């Protein structure tokens, strides 16, 4: 069992057992039975992944500090950050929506960025990241619930909806969210299970 344990892969979607092959960069291995993705080798190296995670952290900060858009009407202006939107829905009595938005748009993306950065940073230095196992389990669990890209499209819809009544001024927050969408998609495309391999290579 032990020597073969690292050479076999089991398809999550149909339970078929496959022998593992080393892939070239950017290649994807698919299940022969159901064609689900078994594993992939990313284009990016550990160093570039770490750089992306750092860039995503900075972008996340900018996206949440600056307002997203400003609306103007007859000399009155109103703008909002993501967090103000979360607070406003809470105060308007739709707490469920407020909590969902806070988790899916703020806490989960923030955790993804910080925890990826933490793990990759230590692995890059050839050290075992403190808290590695619980961190990997958190990353695995929150991944489907992080929804910055949906918010980005939602912002676009919201702007168009009010565009004929108000003058819309785009703020730095919206560009930061656009950049964060791309960076987070790249960071999250990194198969979490790949990190276990990296960890074995560098720390045993």
């Amino acid at each position, binding site marked *: *069992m032990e020597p073969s344990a690292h050479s*076999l*892969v*089991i398809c*999550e*979607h*149909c*339970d*078929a*057992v496959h022998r593992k092959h080393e892939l070239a960069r950017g290649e994807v291995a698919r299940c*022969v*039975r*159901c*064609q*689900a993705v078994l594993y992939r080798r990313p284009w990016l190296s550990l160093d570039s992944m770490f750089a992306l995670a750092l860039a995503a952290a900075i972008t996340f900060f900018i996206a949440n500090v600056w307002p*997203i858009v400003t*609306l103007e*009407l007859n000399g*009155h202006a*109103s*703008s*909002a950050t993501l967090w*103000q*939107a*979360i*607070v*406003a*829905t809470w105060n*308007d*009595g*739709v707490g*469920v*929506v*407020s909590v*969902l*938005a806070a988790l*899916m*748009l703020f806490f989960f993306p923030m955790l993804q960025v910080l925890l990826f950065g933490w793990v990759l940073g230590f692995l890059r230095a050839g050290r075992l990241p403190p808290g590695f*196992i619980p961190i*990997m*389990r958190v990353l*695995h669990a929150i991944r489907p*619930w992080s*929804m910055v890209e*949906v*918010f980005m*499209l*939602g*912002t*676009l*819809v*919201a702007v*168009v*909806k*009010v565009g*004929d009544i*108000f003058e819309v001024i785009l703020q730095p927050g919206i560009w930061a969210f656009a950049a964060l969408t791309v960076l987070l998609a790249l960071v999250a495309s990194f198969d*979490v*299970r790949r990190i*276990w391999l990296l960890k074995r290579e560098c720390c045993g």
Partner: protein
Amino acid sequence: MSEPRISTASELGIVACHCCGQLCRHVQGDICCSRCGARLHRRKPDSLARTWALLLAAMILYIPANLLPIMRTGSLFGSESNTILSGVAELWRAGSWDLAVIVFVASIMVPLMKFAALLVLLISVQRRKAWRARGRAHLFRLVEGIGYWSMLDVFVVTLLVALVRFQLTQVDPGPGVVYFGLVVVLTMLASMSFDPRLIWDHAESVDDGKAEEVEHD
């Protein structure tokens, strides 16, 4: 080229960790992954019952989600309530037909498709159908991959509530948006609790026959 016989992990008495990919020996009962400690199962526990429960709850909540207004726009000329569908119609009338189509697909088509797909998957697995297993596997991955885009309208309302706060014009959230958010969460949980390996468990008897013929050559 093609493998003559596909073995499954459950035949070999092993189970792969869904979190870290580690293979563990699995005889019976609950075990934990030897590497990351995640609880492992040969198949997701009570997959069909849980998926049914979550799916039915989502389908029930989908009714108020569509009938109740998701936001109210108050202005000098009185207040106007919008449901999801009337929001789409408004976008269309305003000339943004492209966004109207996107919102229509994300808010109305995707949840309905997801309901239909999960119903087909649940019923076909319960009746132990071997029918088009690969097609159903694709269907499952499709609904799992696109489901979360339905949160679109919820986030539109979240942002508008904070932005449109003028003396003469305000946007307030309606109760429909709460139901809609819950529908999306419930359908996501439903597709997460469905175990796609069940599709293949019953397809196996057919596959086995074919595979054995190949082996005898």
